[in-house]
């Protein structure tokens, strides 16, 4: 006898699937951020300031991925041989928590100790030196991303470490950073306009 269409087993609807997850928990078992904390983050004054610092893990991960991909091509570095056949998924997984390389932006050396990034710059900012300059090379002006580590953020939401870093630059360097920012935003706008 033919079964009626409605009695066939079907994949759970999205709402139903979600209902299997306990309230307040994510699939990875960690608690879900409350709506109020998310909206508070969205309305943070930091977002309206000049630099909106990306989430540390992602910015570090991006930098790390670049380093690791470069290393994959080079095959050996830090005594850990690698091949170019490493899949992107494995690279991603590794770059999220790269504890092997001092210069991956993760800020840890081979033993997992905190280490500096580029010489003479605060680790928090040197870890994110990824801005291209107009000449096509890598700018010497450090970008304030990938920092954090609990460095001071005032009650007003202003990133004090960012201000201290900017004050440590000379006026000419400050102007160069501003110029790089304006150029980068303009390039992004052009690319977006071009489709």
């Amino acid at each position, binding site marked *: 006898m033919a079964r009626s269409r409605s009695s066939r087993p079907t994949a759970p609807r999205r709402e139903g699937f979600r209902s299997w997850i306990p309230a307040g928990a994510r699939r990875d078992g960690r608690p879900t951020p409350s709506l109020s904390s998310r909206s508070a983050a969205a309305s943070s*004054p930091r977002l*309206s*300031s*000049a*630099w909106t610092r990306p989430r540390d893990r992602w910015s570090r991960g991006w930098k790390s991925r670049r380093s690791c991909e470069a290393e994959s091509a080079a095959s050996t570095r830090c005594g850990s041989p690698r091949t170019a056949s490493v899949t992107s998924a494995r690279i991603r997984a590794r770059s999220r928590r790269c504890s092997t390389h001092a210069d991956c932006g993760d800020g840890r050396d081979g033993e997992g100790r905190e280490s500096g990034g580029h010489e003479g710059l605060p680790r928090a900012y040197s870890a994110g030196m990824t801005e291209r300059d107009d000449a096509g090379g890598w700018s010497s002006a450090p970008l*304030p991303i990938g920092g954090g580590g609990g460095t001071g953020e*005032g009650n*007003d*939401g*202003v990133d*004090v470490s*960012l*201000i*201290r*870093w*900017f*004050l440590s*630059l000379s*006026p*000419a360097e*400050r*102007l160069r*950073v*501003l*110029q790089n*920012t*304006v*150029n980068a*935003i*303009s390039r992004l706008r052009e690319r977006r306009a071009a489709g």
Partner: protein
Amino acid sequence: MQPADFETILKVLAGHKVDLVVVGGVAATLQGAPITTFDLDIVHSREEANLDRLMAALRELDAWYREKPDVRIAPDRERLGGPGHHLLMTHAGPLDVLGAVVTGEGYPELAAHSDLFDLGGGLRVRVLDLRTIIAIKERLNRETDRAVLPVLRRTLKEKP
């Protein structure tokens, strides 16, 4: 809109020995506040000789009023002698030439509250100090001014 090339504009103005004070976002940035702006604001001296120098610099920059790009009106000397604001576009990007800031202060008042910065390559510019930038923004109390005030105040506090 073409992005501003701050250094090029400042070099042309300095090359013509224009007496001016850099104000606004670029001034705040030069004073150490990590903020972003897309145009250069200057307050010029409205003395006769300086107006001649300013006109020569604006001619070199091929300046026109950016509010009416289709008509392409060039700034004239007589208007620049007033306290009004001239929102210009140049071949090096946007430039706002102000006879006086909105709160009324002109070059003589602002120059007394400015610092002379060496930007390298012989380029020296007069930049409004952070305390005065904050005072002006507090008096203006516009939404855009209020948004940036926490960063400016904190920068002033952290400044050695």
